[in-house]
């Protein structure tokens, strides 16, 4: 059993609108799984199906080897994109209530809340009402409530929206820590920087279909184009560019540098290798900059969606 969660061939239709068609994902244990896709692709529907908020028309979800049952909600922690708390309820009471709904006993919930409130240094908020707190403060409470019952599976839908950079970082670190402590995280977003930093695996959903999934590293390898970005310091730029383009496929590059360099993107064909290129370049000019272009998640995202016809 390497997968904590498997969703097998899930389909869901709302009226005439196909929200998901035949989507399968496997979320490995102790990983951070990025569920990506443009707005309206079906991410939230899939997440709601995993949370048993919506029932799928077809397909099944397996959690830790068992078909999903109502009692599994206590093993799942869910931070929805549309989130909030009761505005006129006190922080402490509210957190206790939500924790008890997740199956914790009163005393256990209280103990764990004390721990978290101390850790995040928010103990003095206990008797405040949510409406007295700022949005960022309320988000922190929300995060604590999501992870309090120590779920095996954590699902975050756009977790960083509404956080300032400092708090976003804090939460990011907590997510990584939770992963290291053994939790599995599904993380839905369309912000690619955070995918880059956090995710081990990704699945890309577009117009109700899954169009890409796998380990982020593997996907990156598959998408790289063997292109190198170089910066060369030389007097006669056009002559050198001419020379290089006789051997390689060359295009103009744009990056920041200190010197007035000749900046090129050089694409290698299968018969070339990077060492040869470097040797060739150093024989002709002074190499200031040499870097393989690895596609970032954002490029892969946009490219894959374009390839799938949009």
């Amino acid at each position, binding site marked *: 059993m390497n997968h904590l969660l498997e969703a097998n061939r899930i389909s869901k239709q*709302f009226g005439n609108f196909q929200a998901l068609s035949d989507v399968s994902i496997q979320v490995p244990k102790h990983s951070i799984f990025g569920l990506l896709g443009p707005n309206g692709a079906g991410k939230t529907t899939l997440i709601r199906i995993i949370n048993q*908020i919506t029932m799928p028309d077809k397909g099944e979800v397996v959690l830790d080897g068992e078909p999903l049952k*109502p009692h599994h909600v206590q093993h799942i922690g869910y931070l929805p994109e549309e989130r909030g*708390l009761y505005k006129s309820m006190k922080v402490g009471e509210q957190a206790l209530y939500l924790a008890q*709904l*997740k199956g914790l006993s009163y005393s256990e919930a209280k103990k764990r809340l004390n721990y978290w409130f101390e850790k995040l240094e928010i103990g003095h908020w206990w008797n405040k009402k949510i409406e007295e707190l700022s949005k960022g403060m309320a988000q922190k409470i929300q995060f604590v409530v999501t992870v309090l019952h120590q779920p095996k599976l954590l699902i975050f839908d756009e977790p960083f929206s509404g956080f300032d950079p400092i708090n976003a970082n804090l939460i990011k670190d907590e997510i990584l820590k939770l992963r290291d402590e053994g939790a599995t995280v599904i993380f839905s977003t369309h912000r690619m920087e955070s995918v880059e930093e956090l995710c081990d695996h990704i699945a890309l959903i577009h117009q109700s279909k899954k169009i890409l999934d796998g380990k982020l590293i593997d996907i990156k390898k598959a998408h790289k184009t063997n292109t190198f970005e170089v910066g060369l310091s030389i007097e006669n730029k056009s002559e050198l560019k001419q020379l290089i383009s006789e051997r390689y496929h060359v295009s103009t590059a744009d990056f920041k540098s200190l010197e007035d360099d000749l900046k090129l993107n050089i694409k290698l064909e299968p018969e070339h290798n990077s060492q040869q290129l470097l040797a060739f370049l150093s024989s002709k000019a002074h190499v200031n900059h040499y870097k393989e272009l690895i596609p970032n998640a954002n490029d892969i995202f946009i490219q894959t969606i374009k390839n799938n016809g949009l």
Partner: protein
Amino acid sequence: MNHLSLIIKREYLAKVKNKSFILMTFLSPLIIVGLFLFVAYLTNVNNEKIRDIVVLDQSDLFKETLVSTQQTKYQLVETMDLKSAKSLANETKAYGLLFIPNRTLDSISNYIQFFSEDSPSLSFITGLESKLENRIKELKLRQAGVDLDKIEAAKTYINLNQESFEGVKTSKAGSAMKLMFGGAAGYLLFMFIIVYGNMIMRSVIEEKTSRIIEVIISSVKPIQLMLGKIFGTSLAGITQFAIWILLGFVMLLVVTFVFGVDLTPVQTPQQELMNNAMTQSASNAEIQTIINEFYTLPIGNLIIAFVLFFIGGYLLYSSLYAAIGAAVDNETDTQQFMFPILMPLILAIYVGVFTVIEDPHGTISTVFSYIPFTSPVVMLMRIPFGVPLWEQALSLLILGMTFVLVVWFAAKIYRVGILMYGKKPTYKELLKWLKY
């Protein structure tokens, strides 16, 4: 603790701890008692006012009729023309001047005039008119040579001695009492549904606008949340009612004993009339009948039926309110859905008030006491008049089955609606949601 009881507890405490709820609970009885005292005070002041009426009776026919009472003093003036009588009335700040010219008995009624500074009170004018009418009638009869004593002797009042086939004596006053019983029960239910149904709806909308809903339904089933809300809010409502009844009782006691205010206002002319009528019709024996009737009221049946129909009717409507709350984003959007809910309720009250009085076991009353959306109110109004148990049971059964159906329907809308944001749904869309 299981989810439902947790939700009920939270909903209950959230309502009960709410500042405006507490304020309403303790302030409303004060306001009501205050208003009551104010009205009583005003009535007293009004009745203490003495009306001076200057009477210029040139026909000399009405002296015996216009006898001064505590509130109305007739000041008869003679040998004076209308102009000086007017100025006299004006100077003495009299309430008005009654001018009766010297005419024949046949035409006099067209020439009697009343002058006053402000427009006089309607009840006073009506009273005066009937006095004059009676006097003229009497004089005309006498002129025609009719013996008034004989007419008086021929006057007959009939008050049918009503008795059911089982031999239970009933009466008109008894019917009125029954109607009051049923009416109070029906009206209470009506108010309860509107006030606390709205409260449920607002609390659903609040969960949507604060965006907590998705967090909660990832832990509990939507139907649990919906039922928890309905029960929690209802308990809060019952608490509020209990406090009101208790407070009202205590305050009335305090007011009557401590302040010693006499809450029965001085009798007004209308009340005098009514009392006369009452004493004419309600003899001692009749009062005995009414008391007997009170004891023969199906009290046990009434209480049990009240509880059952109250719960059934309230739950039926409150699940609809919850569904409406789930379907919309804010309170202003609820209007289009409120009307179809209020319609049957108002209809029930109308049927109850107009038809049940007329004929408690007629076709219309009977039919409406089976239709589930009107049956709680109408049946509660009918029961004091005696409804066979099987009819009540059948009506309850229909109500119960409809409740199950409506909860299923409401839960569907609720389940989909709580996750829908941003647009105002139409009825067509609501129907579509049922299929999701």
